[in-house]
Every structure is written in C-alpha cells, then in structure tokens.
C-alpha cells in the first residue's frame, strides 16, 4: 500500500472483519454507492447480465444498479470523469469476455475492510462460463497511486440471479433507502452497538 492508500485505509472504520467495530464509517451504512469491485465480490445480492450488440449490462440487485460495458470497439477515455462503477469496454477473446475499466470514483471502498481505490485505477475482468449455470471470473486491479503492485483475484464465482436458471426467480428491487437506513440506525444499530 502506498502512503496515500494507507492514510485512507487508516481512516476507514469498517463494521466487519478483523478491524470491525460497531457503527463506523462504511459508505454503504448510509446507502452510499458500493462501487464496482465491491459489488462484484459481494456475495449477498445477485446480479443479472443482459447482452445487446453494442452494450452488455450488469444489473446489480443491490441499489438496483446498472453497469454498462461498451462492446462497440470504442476505446477507454483518456481523461475519464470519475464514476462509482467506472467506464467499461468489453471484447471477446475466444470464450472469455474481457472487460477493461477506468475512471473510478475514489470515494468507494474496494471491500468491507476499507481498502481504497484511486481515480488512477484500471481494472480487468475476465469472465468464463464454465458450465451451464456458472460464470467464473478473474479480477486484476492496477492502481499505482494506491498499491505498489496489482492485486489479482482468480476464479471467483459470479453471484448471478440464476438459481439454476429458474425463470420463475425474479430479482428484487433492493434499493437502499437513506431515510429507512437512518431510522434503522436510530432504532437498532446505534442502541445495539453503543454504551449508554
């Protein structure tokens, strides 16, 4: 981790894992966007994938988020506007769908432990359908402003809204509602976690 990343990591107060404490400042605890990498590795809420000739969409159940991957041979922008879910282009290499992204908003956490990501980051995702119901993917994040070497996560299983491709299973509208979250915090989270 670079000094820039270490400072951000130290400022992050996660609610989970070895550094987890009650309350804290995880962005998602106030319904702030989860961001791309965290959405991809988050196991609790599923995604759907929709392919069209020019764009492939990933629809994440959590936040009802749409993430577009351009497949019309365009290039990545050289000076992208930061986005919570990045700017993405995709192409097929044989049976592997390769997605490249840049332009990440640095307000998100990469994971529940509070690892940061910078606006200079680029991400490569490599998707393979290994059997009828399963898509596996690799993630390669290159972010020299934050990390001294790329981080690579291989063989992740996409949490897809398939349930064995059962057509009767529908994806829910899993919106995070700030007013509801605030009420929950007041009624449950805060009393449960704080001494009085």
């Amino acid at each position: 981790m670079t000094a820039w990343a270490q400072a951000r990591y130290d400022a992050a107060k996660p609610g989970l894992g070895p550094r987890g404490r009650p309350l804290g400042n995880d962005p998602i605890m106030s319904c702030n966007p989860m961001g791309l990498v965290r959405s991809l590795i988050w196991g609790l809420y599923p995604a759907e994938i929709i392919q069209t000739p020019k764009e492939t969409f990933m629809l994440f159940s959590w936040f009802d988020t749409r993430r577009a991957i351009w497949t019309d041979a365009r290039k990545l922008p050289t000076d992208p506007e930061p986005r919570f879910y990045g700017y993405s282009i995709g192409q097929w290499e044989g049976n592997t769908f390769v997605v490249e992204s840049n332009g990440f908003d640095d307000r998100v956490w990469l994971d529940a432990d509070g690892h940061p990501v910078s606006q200079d980051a680029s991400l490569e995702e490599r998707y393979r359908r290994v059997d009828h119901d399963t898509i596996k993917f690799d993630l390669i994040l290159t972010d020299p402003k934050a990390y001294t070497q790329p981080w690579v996560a291989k063989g992740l299983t996409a949490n897809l809204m398939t349930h064995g491709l059962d057509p009767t299973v529908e994806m829910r509208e899993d919106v995070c509602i700030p007013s509801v979250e605030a009420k929950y915090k007041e009624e449950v989270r805060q009393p449960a976690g704080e001494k009085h």
Partner: protein
Amino acid sequence: MTRVIKYVLTAGLLAISASLALAHHGSRISYDMSQMVTVKGVVTEYSWNNPHVYFLFDVKDETGKVTSWAAETDPPSTMTRYGWSKNYLKVGDEVTVTVWPSKVGAPRGFLAKLVKADGTVTDHTGQLPPE
C-alpha cells in the same frame, strides 16, 4: 444457502474472506454470538426493508414494566427464501424471540429463532457461526 467464494490473492494486498463478503454489514459485530436470550413480547413495528429486516416488540416483565426490544435479521432477498414477506409479521402479533443479544446490554439482538402465536417457527440458531 451460503455461497462460497474462493479468492486467490497473488499480490496479497487485500485480505477479503468469504465471511467478510457475505456477512451482514455493520451490525452483527454488535452482538454476542456466544449466547442467546429468549423473550416474549408483542410486535409494535415491522420493517420489511433493505438492507435490514427488523421488528420492534414490547416485553413486559413481572412487575409490569414494558421494555421495547428490537430484533434484526437478514435482508428481504434472503428472508424471502425462508418464507418471510411484507406480511410475515404485523403489529400486535405475539412472538417468542430468541436473539444473539447486544454486547452492550441493550434490548437489541440479531434474530436466532422466532416463534409466532400460530406456531410458525423461523429457526436460524444453527446457521450463524460466531464471528
């Protein structure tokens, strides 16, 4: 129901575990997963919302003093698989609630088991490993 995600972190920069990715964010850490408490009460509020389904219920002790408790559980997407819905509880329902209690002693808990007056049972006591 738990999906296992395997990570190979060659750079060793991120230590994400499957449980970290899957766990209920931000709340479960407030609860003592080594013990359970059972109380009986009457539902006063039911919140069928993301990301925390929870309900409040009044518990009366032997002196007649009423304490407002709350029990939270998994999000609607998960609870749907256990037969829960927006109608699973309603204000006025008599409930017997077993929770992993708040570590700071507040009348709050993470739901382990719920028995409704009609005998319907939701039992998660064997599902959650202590964190």
